[in-house]
């Protein structure tokens, strides 16, 4: 059940092996990449399975949309290769499990999915979210994080239930069939990962950035330009849906933001580092964070914009120490309306 939609032949015939050659964390030339790729395809041991940092980026690099990252995670789990220690993995699985406390509630559009982050529900305010409902809690958690822990099985087990919870407890009986995903994690899960695993999603997902862009268009005459230089911290889960990236520039342009030119942006974005710490790779996390923050600082950013709560909680303190203001994309947009109030 929920077999990974993956075509072995596509990979076998692939001439470029972008998934591994382009990896920012493992160093492969084309020849060694092909050898390792073949090992993965054949279910043999591979350095990739042991050393993958689970940045998701190969999902974006693959020109054939053949889900190389999901296959890596699949193989890791089959072979019992744990990127993080067993007790850490087990504890996280318990910590994030659905509490089963969800109760049916009427919602009205736009419905904003806040995933498992009740501490961020204060973001849903003001003109940008006028009339919106939000949903939040353990019982609607997208569960994409298990890709970092070699646990596709948990995604298979929990995700269909989460989708059904959203549909049957909130959307269906409210006559709503669209869900605005506040985080890339949820949008990527519902629109890309679910498809890859053959999991049905009975509602339409809208990325927050698309929602914000359209809202900003509608409120164009009320916008006061923010006039800031920002560095954007692209989250790993956006690698699943790179087609949403253009909305970032779209939003920045609408609210008078300059996105600084820097090395670690867009396809070359660096992970926030928190997953590396879960994998017990502190020194790698230190190095990646240092390079990322140096880059932001040298580019002259005075804001660091996040969409992923995990990235935000991981880097907020560190960017502040560099004199850069950490802010969520949603709150950055709010500045265009709250400035001077």
């Amino acid at each position, binding site marked *: 059940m929920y077999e990974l939609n993956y075509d072995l032949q596509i990979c076998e015939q692939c001439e470029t092996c972008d998934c591994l050659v382009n990896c920012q964390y493992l160093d492969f030339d084309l020849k060694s990449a092909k050898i390792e790729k073949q090992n993965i395809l054949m279910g043999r041991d591979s350095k990739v399975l042991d050393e993958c940092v689970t940045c998701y980026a190969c999902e974006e690099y693959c020109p054939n949309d053949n889900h190389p990252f999901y296959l890596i995670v699949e193989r890791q789990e089959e072979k019992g290769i744990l990127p993080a*220690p067993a007790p850490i993995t087990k*504890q996280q699985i318990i910590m994030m499990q659905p509490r089963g406390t969800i109760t049916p509630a009427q919602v009205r559009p736009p419905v904003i999915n806040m995933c498992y982050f009740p501490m961020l529900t204060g973001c849903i305010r003001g003109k940008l979210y006028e009339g919106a409902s939000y949903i939040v809690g353990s019982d609607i958690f997208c569960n994409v994080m298990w890709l970092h822990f070699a646990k596709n099985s948990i995604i298979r087990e929990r995700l269909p239930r989460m989708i059904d919870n959203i549909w049957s407890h909130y959307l269906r009986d409210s006559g709503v069939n669209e869900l605005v995903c506040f985080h890339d994690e949820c949008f990527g899960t519902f629109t890309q990962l679910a498809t890859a695993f053959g999991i049905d999603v009975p509602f339409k997902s809208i990325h927050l950035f698309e929602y914000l862009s359209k809202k900003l268009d509608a409120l164009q005459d009320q916008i006061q330009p923010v006039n800031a230089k920002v560095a954007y911290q692209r989250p790993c889960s956006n690698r699943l849906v790179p087609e949403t990236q253009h909305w970032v520039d779209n939003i920045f342009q609408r609210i008078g933001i300059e996105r600084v030119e820097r090395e670690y942006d867009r396809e070359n974005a660096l992970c926030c580092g928190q997953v590396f710490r879960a994998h017990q790779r502190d020194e790698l996390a230190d190095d990646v964070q240092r390079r990322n923050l140096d880059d932001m600082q040298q580019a002259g950013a005075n804001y660091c914009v996040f969409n992923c709560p995990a990235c935000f*909680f991981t880097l907020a303190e560190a960017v502040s120490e560099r004199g850069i203001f950490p802010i969520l994309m949603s709150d950055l947009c709010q500045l265009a309306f709250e400035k001077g109030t």
Partner: protein
Amino acid sequence: MSGVSLMKEIVEKLVKIVGAEFVSDQPEERYIYSMDPGTMPPREPDIVVIPGTSEEVRQIMILANRDEIPVVPLGAGLVLSGLSRALKGGIILDMKRMNRILEVNETSRYAVVEAGTSQGMLQAYLKKHHPNLKHSAPDAPPVATIAGNVSIHGSGHLSHAAGFHSDMLNGLEVVLPTGEVARIGSCATSPYWFSRAPLPDLAGLFLGWAGTTGVITKLAIKLYPNYKYNDVGIFVTEEAQLIPDILHRMTGTQVAEDMTTWMTPKPDWARGFLHCDINFGANTKDELIWKRNLIRASVQEYIDQKVAGFMPLPPAMKQPFLEVPARTLSRFADVRRGGGFEYVGAIMPVDLFPEAYKVGLEIADSLNVNYSLGSRIIGVNHCMMFFYAYAFNRADPADVERAQKALEETNRIVVDMGGIPWKAEAPAQKEIIRKMDPNMFDLMNRIRAVLDPKGIMNPGNWEED
């Protein structure tokens, strides 16, 4: 003279010593001073007196000794094991008015305080006036006194780096049961309270005796660098038998300040996991990372085996684990509501950790009590204070009884295991005495007979049946 008229006369004399507002034999005060938050039954004193100076304490002791009135010194009353109850009536000597911070020596890193000075007062004072210094605070409410915790061989947030709080003691001023005021340590011969060495170390006559040898009125404790940068790692495993070696390896790096373990069934994600908190500080970020790496390297073998690892906590989520004192135990203390909380803190070698943990789970399971288990490492893994905490609802007698049974059972097993109950309740003291080398107990009695010939100091403690 009848007992009643004797007490009336004593009250009058005490009023002359400390003033009328600081003496009471009224039922409400006697009730309040009859108990602590633990399970030990109340014992009312006859009189409560709150002295303001060492001289007043001296006069009180002369009076009490003359008339053979029991005297029980009291700090904040938070010992939980009933050590400051008046088991045989008499006077409760509440030291809280003597709360002056007399000196802080920045260079030699020590503070001289009066015996009623609380942990919170010293912490706040240092923060304001000497931000580069800190003392080792226990995980007790801030009103707990410095002297009380030192005198029971307490431990705290610098105990891995520097041992028991009694190890951090530089000197004492004590009023003996017969009224003499004695200084112990360097302060006996020098204006500086820098050390107990090189003189004969008499401080031990007042440490661990449950107030049966004299009244501490002043003390000097060591202070330590208050680092600008602080971090915590939480190392997690499911295998209790690994813990002694994990602690041995981590403490061997000697870069942390505090190491504690905690095991609790709530929240759900904590059940069945053993957590080691490692707190460390540094003057620079680079130094902090260097220390973190040393600690990590010491347990890399277990990480590589995937049987243990550090919990991935973003900076904001580390804050509760960097708090001094930690609030988690206080929250647990009220989990049953009703304000009842007691724990057996057992001092034992770290080798006994797996057995101690197993025992805690078995007792909690058999008696169906809420539990929180944990330990604080003393020194470089030299020993640990393993605690078995049981929360109960004071308003529910059956709940109190259940917790009391759990504590008694734990004390008994701890002694059998080779551990020693810490700040033991009077019944647990008897358990210890039964196991104790009789010559040591005889020596204790001979020392007490010299110091306290009339047996007025906190009678009922450290006594055989």
